[in-house]
């Protein structure tokens, strides 16, 4: 069936179409012009019927020569493709194009009269910037590609399409800059994608998870972003990007953990500020992950870690609390996570009520009732806030936080050390398409540290990061005089 050629007789074509497509929203419109029969196949919800009428039906009624060339010349279509098999016709039809079958011709024409509802380009909610572009990717692939093309007006930007999904036939655009991307990386990704057989690709995360080597890992191995400026910058570093139709989150590979600690704002604001904020993010993450565990281990195992006055305050505050310190922390963390989850899922009009319940009732009342202590609540609150300084890794860090808490409550401070060492060993051995995810820290690549935790000044980052193995090393040159400017 897949490669069955289109019949010359239109009646056979229509019969074939009616037999294979029994969907009410797929229309087959038969019309005759001067005894020549035509059939239009289109999806009602994806096509611009006005355009079809103006640009296909009306012009066709005026022609006398019904050869394929004459018909092609008469029809005004922004894109036109000749199709020879039913499979191609179906693919084009479900992609939103209109397919014109001509009686007496064993071919059909695909006409690009797509029209469907899509979300407009807006600032993505997960990447807010104070200064910088505010466009974000949307679910429509062509819109996303337009955002990309507007930023990279070079013939070296290559985009290759691949369809994944037995029923969804989701188009994935593999984007890279020829001459900049690491050699062989695109081929590796395409190889890997071809090994996936799946019914439906609901989101780019499916592709991301398939491309990940260690599928049970807490840490991701594929980068994501919702912003075209960040996506473009990553391509320029030597990475390969994947835009998945139907998902606003685009993927980039290889991935390094450092990229989640870098925000777009860092590149648009003062370097001093950017460096300070990156250090702050790193400390915030450490606080988020380690603070609850450290506090529990200090309360249970290592009282001498705490200064005396603070220790007495804690003893004072935990008097009468029925739960042990470790269980109290776990319980408070669980409540916080429940609040977090509920606030994402609930309808907006009950959000206010839940904020009141969460803040006042659970917070203040629980402390006053002696169910939990104030230091515990404060620590969970601080930890929760610090976690969101790196929003892309919230899921990873919240799991880690729980693990550290369990370990600290069971084995104390040394348990934290052992788990930290275990995580470090895991991270140094993890790779993303041959690139260690802890680069440029492990392995130590000193040249790449100009844009690691320290954010170099404009003009310092002359070379592309060595981490991604691009052969085209230079990305910027500043000349003292314009006449000295040479090609890079």
């Amino acid at each position, binding site marked *: 069936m897949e490669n069955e050629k289109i019949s010359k007789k239109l009646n056979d074509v229509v019969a074939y179409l009616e037999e294979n497509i029994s969907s009410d929203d797929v229309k087959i419109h038969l019309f005759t012009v001067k005894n020549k029969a035509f059939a239009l196949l289109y999806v009602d919800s994806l096509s611009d019927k006005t355009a079809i009428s103006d640009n296909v039906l009306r012009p066709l009624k005026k022609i006398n020569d019904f050869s394929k060339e004459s018909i092609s010349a008469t029809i005004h279509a922004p894109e036109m493709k000749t199709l020879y098999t039913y499979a191609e016709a179906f693919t084009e039809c479900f992609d939103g194009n209109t397919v014109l079958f001509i009686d007496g011709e064993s071919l059909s024409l695909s006409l690009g009269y797509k029209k469907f509802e899509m979300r407009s380009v807006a600032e993505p909610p997960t990447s807010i910037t104070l200064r910088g572009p505010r466009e974000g990717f949307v679910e429509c692939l062509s819109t996303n590609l337009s955002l990309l093309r507007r930023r990279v007006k070079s013939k070296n930007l290559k985009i290759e399409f691949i369809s994944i999904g037995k029923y969804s036939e989701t188009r994935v655009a593999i984007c890279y800059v020829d001459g900049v991307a690491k050699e062989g990386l695109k081929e590796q990704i395409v190889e890997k994608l071809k090994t996936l057989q799946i019914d439906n690709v609901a989101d780019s995360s499916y592709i991301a998870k398939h491309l990940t080597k260690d599928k049970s890992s807490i840490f991701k191995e594929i980068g994501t972003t919702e912003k075209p400026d960040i996506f473009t910058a990553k391509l320029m570093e030597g990475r390969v990007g994947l835009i998945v139709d139907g998902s606003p989150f685009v993927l980039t590979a290889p991935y390094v953990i450092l990229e989640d600690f870098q925000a777009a704002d860092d590149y648009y604001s003062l370097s001093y500020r950017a460096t300070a904020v990156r250090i702050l993010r790193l400390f915030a993450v450490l606080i988020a992950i380690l603070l609850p565990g450290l506090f529990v281990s200090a309360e249970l195992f290592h009282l001498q870690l705490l200064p005396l006055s603070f220790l007495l305050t804690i003893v004072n505050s935990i008097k009468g609390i029925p739960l042990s310190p470790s269980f109290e922390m776990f319980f408070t963390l669980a409540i916080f996570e429940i609040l977090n989850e509920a606030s994402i899922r609930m309808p907006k009009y009950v959000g206010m009520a839940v904020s009141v319940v969460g803040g006042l009732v659970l917070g203040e009342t629980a402390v006053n009732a002696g169910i939990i202590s104030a230091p515990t609540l404060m620590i969970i609150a601080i930890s929760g806030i610090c976690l969101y300084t790196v929003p892309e890794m919230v899921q990873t860090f919240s799991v880690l936080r729980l693990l550290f808490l369990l370990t600290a409550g069971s084995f*104390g401070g040394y348990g934290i050390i*052992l788990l930290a060492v275990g995580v470090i060993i895991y991270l140094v051995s993890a790779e993303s398409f041959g690139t260690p995810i802890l680069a440029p820290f492990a392995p130590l690549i000193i040249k790449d540290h100009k844009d690691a935790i320290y954010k170099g000044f404009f003009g310092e980052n002359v070379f592309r990061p060595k981490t991604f193995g691009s052969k085209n090393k230079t990305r910027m040159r500043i000349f003292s005089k314009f006449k000295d400017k040479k090609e890079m």
Partner: protein
Amino acid sequence: MNYPLKTRQIALFFIAFLPVVKMFTMPKSAAEACNEDMWISILLCLIIDYATILALIKINKTHQKPFYDILKDRFGTITAKTIFFVYFLFFMIKAFTPIFELRNFVQNSFYSTSLRTFPFVPFFILSVYFCTKKYSVLGRLSDLLWIMTVLGVSLILFLSIANADFGAIMPIFNNGLNIFKGSYFITPWFTDASYLLFMIGFFKHEEKTTLKLSLAFLAHGIIILLFSIVFYCSFTFVAKREFFPLSEIAKYSGVINAIGRFDYIAILIILISNTVSVALPLYFATKTLSMIIPIKNNVIIPIIINVSHLIIATFFERYQQFIIAIIHLNLSPVMLCLGNIAPFLLLFIKPKKADFTNNKALLKRSA
């Protein structure tokens, strides 16, 4: 040719992992033997180690092959495996002291009122995981953890240096032969050149390899000497009774009185590198046993090695001092021979002409 290790990583390995394992009972043991001349006995051991390292750098440059391959090519597989078995036992014995020390330190400093045995079991679980990793992972760990060692040691020294009476190391050479006795006793803590012995052939000899590794070893030596001297100068006559200098040395700073045990932060930072450092002999024991008995599943050998150490650490706790005494008093010469003297013998093994030509071509290609 893709080498799993780089010269830089080996240099940072010296700084990250070698000093931390010598900060527990080694300074106290040296002080017991020769009082104020303890730094000289430590220096002697460092010099011997450095000489061995220089020899190994030369061997790596000449052969550009792993130790096993050099032995196999010259003496055959059975001899190579026999020698590797001897080194397997060497690393198993070398692991005892650091494991006992770490266990005692952790249990006494961190767990004064809780169960004494169980909290240390997770160390061996982590060690099994670590032992399954390749050399490239060890190199990257060095890249990352050297900063922990430097930071932790700097903080400890910063807190403790003001309270040290540096005149305590005078007079020099007053203890005569006891200096050599001290060196003899502390030898099992050293013999670090044995690690490099098993890394030859896995890193490329570059132009500045000798310089980089020498500087790194010098840095490691300075850290150890400085720590030991500050320790002795802080405690002088009561140094012999201080079992855990790491947790005692920085307590006298004004910061501690004001804020609390701030030095525990430095200790926790050092313990991160130290955990890997203590697992290193087990790691290399795994590597040696894997060459003797190649098994596809790379978890079995680490499990065997770590479980045996766990059993000894748990059920033979009563014999701990006895075991340590045997190692340091009776087995010191054996460890010295295997760790420092035996590598020199490789200098006398010349690569075959074909190998030499191949190596030259190899070096040219990879240059």
